[in-house]
């Protein structure tokens, strides 16, 4: 039986969650501005492939990350351009791009499959890594993990504590009112879609250069884009709550690995797939929690009431509805 070392378990959760956190934050920023970028799954694969190939060819990991971010930004810009300037359905364009970018990644990356390439090295933080328990979990990781943790705080601070964040939220809530206040909603939506795309691109690079180093078919990042989209809803469009969802998903994935050792009679595929339906189930529970009858019941249960209040979130009012300047 596999022994459960909590330090290793949680360190694995934090490391494995880094790309999911980045993708979730990217989508949260995009959706806060009112644009649904459904192409995450394909974008992650394409940027993962691009990062690996560039890092392999140039032997420069940083260049791989830059290239992957640019790829993510370009795909997000296409979704935003079709929605904002061509008035096309964001869902339709995003879905087509998901399939197209996935196939493009497999097509272009075919000759680089199963090659050994560079990967991000651990970067323990001096002194902090020696803190009992927490030091090993949070400060004995690589730079990407620190970056993902920093981005959670930065995104929250930017959205809720800065005037620019207020503009971002206003464009997603009521672009007409923003326009009346002198803000250009189209430009803002385009800009934040690209910013979100950059983060999604970095998420892809984190997969192929750190979490699951290398490129192949399948790469191992398939399906994560859809989970990131679910996590945005799970987090109620709040970066901190969405990131917590990402850690929950990562925890389920790591527990799946442990469960393979504990329950050898159950096929390994069950544990690999289990986090996905579990996340859908969580979303279902959260959706039920929004129902009036459940809310009324929670009125008499203070603890449940506070949990429901924490989990509740509001959809940006103009999400998926492009701004029309009549």
């Amino acid at each position, binding site marked *: 039986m596999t022994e459960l070392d909590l330090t290793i378990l949680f360190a694995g959760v934090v490391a494995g969650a880094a790309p999911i956190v980045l993708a979730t934050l990217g989508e949260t920023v995009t959706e806060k501005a009112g644009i649904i970028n459904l192409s995450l799954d394909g974008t992650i694969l394409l940027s993962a492939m691009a990062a690996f190939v560039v890092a392999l060819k140039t032997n420069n990991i940083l260049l791989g990350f830059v290239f992957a971010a640019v790829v993510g930004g370009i795909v997000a810009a*296409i979704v935003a351009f*079709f929605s904002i300037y*061509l*008035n*096309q359905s964001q869902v*339709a*364009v995003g879905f*087509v*791009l998901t*399939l*197209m*970018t*996935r*196939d*493009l990644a*497999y*097509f272009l990356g*075919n000759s680089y499959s199963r090659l050994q390439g560079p990967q991000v090295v651990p970067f323990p933080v001096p002194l902090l890594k020696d803190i009992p328990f927490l030091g090993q979990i949070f400060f004995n990781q690589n730079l990407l993990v620190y970056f993902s943790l920093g981005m959670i705080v930065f995104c929250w601070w930017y959205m809720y504590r800065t005037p620019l964040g207020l503009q971002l939220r206003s464009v997603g809530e009521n672009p007409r009112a923003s326009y009346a206040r002198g803000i250009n909603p189209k430009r803002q939506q385009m800009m934040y879609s690209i910013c979100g795309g950059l983060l999604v691109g970095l998420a892809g690079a984190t997969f192929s250069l750190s979490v699951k180093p290398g490129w192949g078919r399948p790469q191992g990042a398939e399906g994560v884009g859809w989970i990131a989209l679910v996590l945005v809803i799970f987090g109620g469009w709040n970066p901190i709550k969405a990131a917590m969802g990402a850690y929950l998903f990562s925890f389920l994935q790591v527990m799946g690995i442990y469960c393979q050792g504990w329950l050898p009679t159950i096929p390994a595929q069950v544990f690999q797939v289990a986090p996905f339906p579990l996340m859908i189930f969580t979303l279902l529970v959260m959706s039920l929690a929004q129902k009036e009858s459940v809310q009324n019941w929670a009125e008499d249960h203070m603890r449940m009431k506070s949990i429901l209040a924490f989990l509740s979130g509001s959809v940006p009012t103009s999400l998926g509805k492009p701004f029309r300047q009549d």
Partner: protein
Amino acid sequence: MLANYNVWITPLVAFFFACLNVGSIQLPMMLELDSSLSGVIQGSLVLATLALHSWRIHGKMSGGTPAT
């Protein structure tokens, strides 16, 4: 969308995409290309059609000569 809501064009469009799907299986054998190329072509075609559709509507709304 590709058939522009024209029922008579739909079988032709479906036939074209079926050709791409079936042809994708032959790609590795005949041309030594990855079968996922067909997905890239399909996606590009759909995006191009959406862009063209928008351009036509924009042309009509602005009073110019729309593309046919």
